[in-house]
Every structure is written in C-alpha cells, then in structure tokens.
C-alpha cells in the first residue's frame, strides 16, 4: 500500500514527464516561444503555431467567467444570507446535480439551445452575421458547467463567517446589504478567489462541450461572435491524423502538456489558498 501511495504522488510528475517526452521532438525544430506566438497551423508543412488555440481557450474561459461569476456570487449571497433555509436546502443540491451531467450532454444542449439563440437573437442585435457556433456559445455553455463549483464553494465560504461579525456591523446601523458589501465580502474574498481559480482551471480543460459548439476555426477570435478553437479541442479533433504527419503527435502532446502545466498550477494555488482559509478560521 505504501508503494501505491508513493506511486500516485509521483504519478502527477509521471504524466508531466511522459507528455514532455513525447513533445520533445518538436523542440528540436522550434523554440517554445515561437510555437506559442505564431499563428500558422499547417501540420503537413511543419508549421505549428499555437497562438490561435491559446487565444481560443482564453476567450472562451474569459467569457465563461464573466457570465458565471456575477450570477453565482449573487446566488450564493442570496442563498446564505437572505433566503429561507428550506429554499437553500433544495437549490444547493439542485445546482450540484449540474456537476454530474456529462459534458457531452452539455454539448448537445449547447447545439440545440444556445447556438440558435446566438444565431437568431444575439448576433443580429449587434449587426453581425453568425452561424451560432461561436466563442460566445462556448463561453455560455462553459459558464453553466462551472455554476456548481462557484456556487458550492462560495456558499461554503460565506457560511463560515461568524454571525457576531455581521452583528457588529448591523448594530452600528448598517443595512444587511451594506454589511455584506463592506464586511462579509472582504472577509470572504480569499475564498472567492480560490473558487474562481478552480472554476477557471475546470473551464480551461473542458474539451467536448466546447468542441461541439465552438466552430473549430483555427484563427484567433477577434469578437465574441467568431468561432474559436480551444486547446483541448485541438487535441481531441486531430488525434486520428496525428500519426500520419511527422511531428504532429509531438505537437498535440505539447498542447496536452501546456494544458496540464497550467491547470496543475491553478489547482495547486487554489488548494493552498483554500487550505489556508480552513486552517485560519477553524
């Protein structure tokens, strides 16, 4: 058992090492910086510019956070501070069910609900012609996927704030909302940051749902109504061909490695913050 446990810790590094090993041949021909900055993606001519895919990932993740964070903060504050506990007992589990729904189902929903919405209502409002398969669509679908993480962690953080602290503010004549704005929020901030970081790392790595609704156009997006091609989608879409073109498999492994490193770091940071909070206030 000891061996298994030690093996699993080293497993993390094993994955990273394995991916690096497969990606290494690529570095013989290009530097890491040039790979990340160039935009041309033509594997058969040996051109591997990762820039559009990095941008695609960033756009989609950014939109997801912009949509989800305010909604989830407001919802969490409502559930912990204002609503009856019976409402909270029903809604929190309900939101958590969202976490169990497989991404491919989100993809189907995205195609049949969000894509038409963007195509027929959102884009025309901004004078844009769009197929509906856009980074906006991907962002919205991703946003719903991260609702459970944000709502459950932020609610938990809010719940740990001592009543007496809120009482102190209330007895000075502040309204409940002012208390939340000025006292509760400040105290909860590290936890909210940690939750956001976790949600971002989840959004970064989501492959299938985004792939199904993003259009998969290998050009960096310039507007929310453009199609995009996030890193995970790149890997998933091209795995079939990767063995037939030289260096293609290394490129995809590099993409996987990039994802792995970024998500690893994000996860580490947020877990450390969350652990610190739990330690400080328990």
């Amino acid at each position, binding site marked *: 058992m000891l061996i298994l446990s030690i093996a699993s810790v080293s497993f993390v590094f094993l994955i990273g090492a394995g991916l690096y090993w497969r990606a290494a041949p690529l570095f013989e021909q290009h530097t890491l910086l040039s790979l990340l900055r160039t935009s041309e993606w033509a594997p058969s001519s040996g051109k591997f510019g990762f820039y559009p895919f990095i941008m695609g990932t960033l756009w989609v993740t950014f939109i997801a956070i912009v949509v989800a964070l305010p909604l989830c903060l*407001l919802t969490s504050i409502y559930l912990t501070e204002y609503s009856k506990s019976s409402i909270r007992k029903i809604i929190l589990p309900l939101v958590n069910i969202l976490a*169990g729904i497989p991404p491919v189902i989100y993809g189907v929903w995205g195609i049949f609900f969000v894509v038409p919405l963007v195509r027929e209502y959102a884009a025309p409002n901004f004078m844009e012609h769009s197929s509906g398969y856009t980074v906006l669509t991907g962002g919205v679908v991703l946003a719903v996927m991260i609702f459970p993480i944000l709502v459950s962690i932020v609610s938990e953080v809010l719940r740990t704030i001592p009543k007496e602290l809120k009482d102190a503010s209330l007895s000075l004549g502040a309204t409940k909302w002012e208390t939340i704005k000025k006292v509760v929020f400040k105290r909860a901030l590290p936890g909210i940051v940690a939750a956001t970081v976790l949600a971002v790392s989840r959004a970064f790595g989501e492959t299938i749902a985004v792939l199904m609704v993003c259009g998969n156009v290998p050009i960096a997006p310039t507007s929310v109504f453009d199609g995009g091609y996030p890193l995970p989608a790149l890997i998933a879409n091209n795995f079939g061909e990767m063995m037939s073109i030289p260096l293609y498999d290394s490129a995809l492994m590099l993409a996987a490695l990039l994802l792995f490193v970024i998500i690893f770091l994000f996860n580490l940071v947020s877990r450390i913050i969350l652990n610190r909070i739990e330690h400080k206030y328990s």
Partner: protein
Amino acid sequence: MGLKQRKTEETIFKVLMVSACIVVSSSLFLIVGTIVAKGLPYLTWDMVSKVPKGGFYIGKEGGVLNAIIGSLYLAGGATVLGLIISIPISVYLNIYLKSGSPLSKSAKLAYDVLFGIPSIVYGAFAFSIMIWLGVRASLLGGVIAVTLLIIPILVRTLDEVITTVPKELKHAALSLGATRWEAAKVVLRQIRPGIYTAILLAFGRGIGDVASVLFTAGFSDNIPKYIDEPAATLPLAIFFQLGSPIPEVQGRAYASALILTIIILIIVVVSHFLGAKQAKHKI
C-alpha cells in the same frame, strides 16, 4: 447617502439576487428539458434492444444497444479496477499513517490536483501507455483510461468520508488489540453508504466521459465479446452520430443522450439517498 438611497440599493440588489438564483437553478431544467424533448420521440423499445444495422454512421435501422452495453462494461470494469486500487490507498493514507504526516498531506494535495486534470490529458496519457504496451483501441484501452481518470475521484471521495469517522473509533478498535487492518475494516463498515456513494460518483463520471475514451476505446457496431475488441460507448455514440445528415442516425444520438442522462439522474438520486443514510449513522 441618505437612508432612502441605502434602502433602495438593497432592494435593487435583492431583485438581482433572486433573478440570478432563478437563472442558475433553472439551467438544470433547461438542459434536461432539451434532452428529453429531442430524445423522447426516438426512445423506442427497438432503440434500446438492438444494435445499429448497416453501420452506425449510415445505417437507418436498429438501436444503440452496442453503446449501452459497451458503456456498462467499460464503466463497470473501470470502477471495479479503480476500487481495487483506491481503497487500499485511502485506507493507508487515513488509517495507517499518523494523521498530519507529510506523506499523507502531500498525497492528498497530489490527488486534489489529479482530480482537476481534464479527462483529455488522461486519454492522451493512456494512449501513450497503450502504444508502449502494444494495446490497440479496445475495451481494454478504454478501461485503462477511465480507471486512471476515476482513481483520484475515488480516493478523494473516500478520503472525505473516512475523515468523518472520529479517530476515537480507530483507537477503540486498536486498544482492543486489533491489528491496523482489522481496525480499518471497522472504519470501512461504518462508512459503507459513503463508499457506495463514491462508487456511484466514479461510475457516473466514467460512463459519461468522452475525451478519455475518444482514442482509447475505439468504436464498433457490435457488442464486444472480448476485452481486446473495440467497444462502443454512449458518449461516443452521441458524438459520432450527432452530425450525421441521416435523421435516423441523428435520432440514435438523441436517444443515447437521453439514456445517458437518465442513467446519470438515477445515480444522482440514489447517491443522495445514500448520503442521507450516511449522515443518519454518524456517531
């Protein structure tokens, strides 16, 4: 700011908060509703009892039995394998090691991180292993990938449940002269509903994931008879058939989506009950 303005600000935000809450909570119904609307018309007895005739991509007849059975085999196998590996690890980390030991802390942190790694990375990694071992895309390949994926889930969930058992229970067993393994069995018995919940959670994740099986499990029109045959899975059945121009094939995709959703919802409801039962038994 006058009192009136302060109260108005609060009222505005209250309205915003309730609206946000409604949006967030109704999204679940939106999603399930869309799936039901698209899938229900195609959910016939044929659909769940037959395999696709004439090739899954163009054949107009038959159903998705291949995917249903394939998914069950795959997720089931991976869950069993995952359990065999995860239970000893959790037991070791929580019961054998002294609480707070650096190995246990770094292991838990490692698992938290592994938990957050996207399934596509697991798929890519498993694929590398498969090439190295000479395994081709098959049920075995899929099982390897999904097992890797769900081990962190199992360890983490088991971990959370085991830590709810007060250490006095372990001490009580040990002071009666039990070996560490016997004490472990006592603790495990205590949290039995929690273990079931962990199994269900991992199974649910395993059966619904696409990225890990995309290049490891292959796809097939038939039900696999041996472990080295390619296997169809529900998520891939959706993924591959959704874009087909033939309505019957699309219909299979919708039906698969609905079946998958139903399976997941059943898992959620059952694990909720088990969670409640676990709470009831807390000392």
